[in-house]
């Protein structure tokens, strides 16, 4: 688990890793009838760990990409992440391109990926850069900006601290599908995990854990069907 990706993983007051990924992996272990061993990883070492069998599967927002799928196998999606526009109800935007306007001010977190996206695609918009997500969401709530472009799921816990009616612009910039990563050719494990993932989706467990840790419903539920 990666403790630097809250609320997927973070350290609690006892210095133990907690979060969505931990709870989800515990559900997987329960279905398999075994104990769960949590292994701490960072982004650079997580794929080597799964390739070499130091871990059986990896989470941590593993977006399924063709490039990654050359070196590890992926299960069905467990959750999505939505790169989109957070704004306040009453704003007229229906598509992220509507923010490419000189009268629009975006509040963004300094040094994050969306800054480059805005520079490339929303050249007319003004950008106010702040140091962290709590400050950026507060600025938006106070009307000091018109929108925030980022992975909206990860700002849910900050949104809930403000008494404003939030709105996520209908057309997202992108939707990423994240599954469990397993070693190449671990076919038996992957097949079993897919059945377990379907079972957890079917029972509503994924949505329940998402709401618990992210404070909001998953914006784009994966909707795994029985015929996968």
């Amino acid at each position: 688990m990666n403790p630097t990706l809250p609320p997927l993983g973070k350290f609690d007051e006892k210095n133990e890793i907690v979060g969505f990924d931990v709870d989800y992996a515990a559900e997987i272990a329960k279905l398999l009838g075994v104990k769960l061993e949590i292994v701490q990883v960072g982004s650079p070492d997580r794929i080597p760990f799964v390739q070499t069998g130091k871990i059986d599967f990896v989470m941590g927002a593993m977006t399924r990409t063709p490039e990654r799928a050359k070196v590890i196998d992926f299960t069905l999606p467990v959750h999505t992440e939505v790169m989109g526009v957070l704004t306040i109800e009453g704003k007229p935007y229906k598509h992220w391109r509507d923010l490419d306007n000189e009268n629009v001010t975006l509040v963004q977190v300094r040094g994050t990926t969306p800054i480059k996206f805005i520079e490339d695609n929303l050249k007319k918009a003004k950008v106010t850069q702040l140091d962290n997500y709590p400050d950026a969401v507060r600025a938006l709530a106070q009307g000091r900006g018109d929108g925030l472009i980022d992975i909206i799921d990860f700002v849910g816990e900050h949104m809930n601290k403000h008494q404003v009616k939030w709105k996520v612009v209908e057309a997202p910039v992108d939707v990423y599908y994240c599954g469990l990563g397993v070693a190449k050719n671990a076919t038996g494990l992957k097949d079993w995990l897919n059945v377990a993932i379907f079972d957890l989706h079917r029972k509503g467990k994924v949505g329940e854990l998402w709401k618990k840790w992210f404070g909001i419903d998953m914006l784009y539920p994966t909707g795994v069907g029985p015929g996968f």
Partner: protein
Amino acid sequence: MSVNRLASIAVALVAMLSFAAGTVSARTLDEIIKSGTIRSA
């Protein structure tokens, strides 16, 4: 760089070298069940 970060990099290097040497491999579902523990990160 923190001690934890250095340790993490060292473990990753060992893992990659072990993989290259063919000394470790992923466990099968059967092996996971028999061991009684599934390892997740």
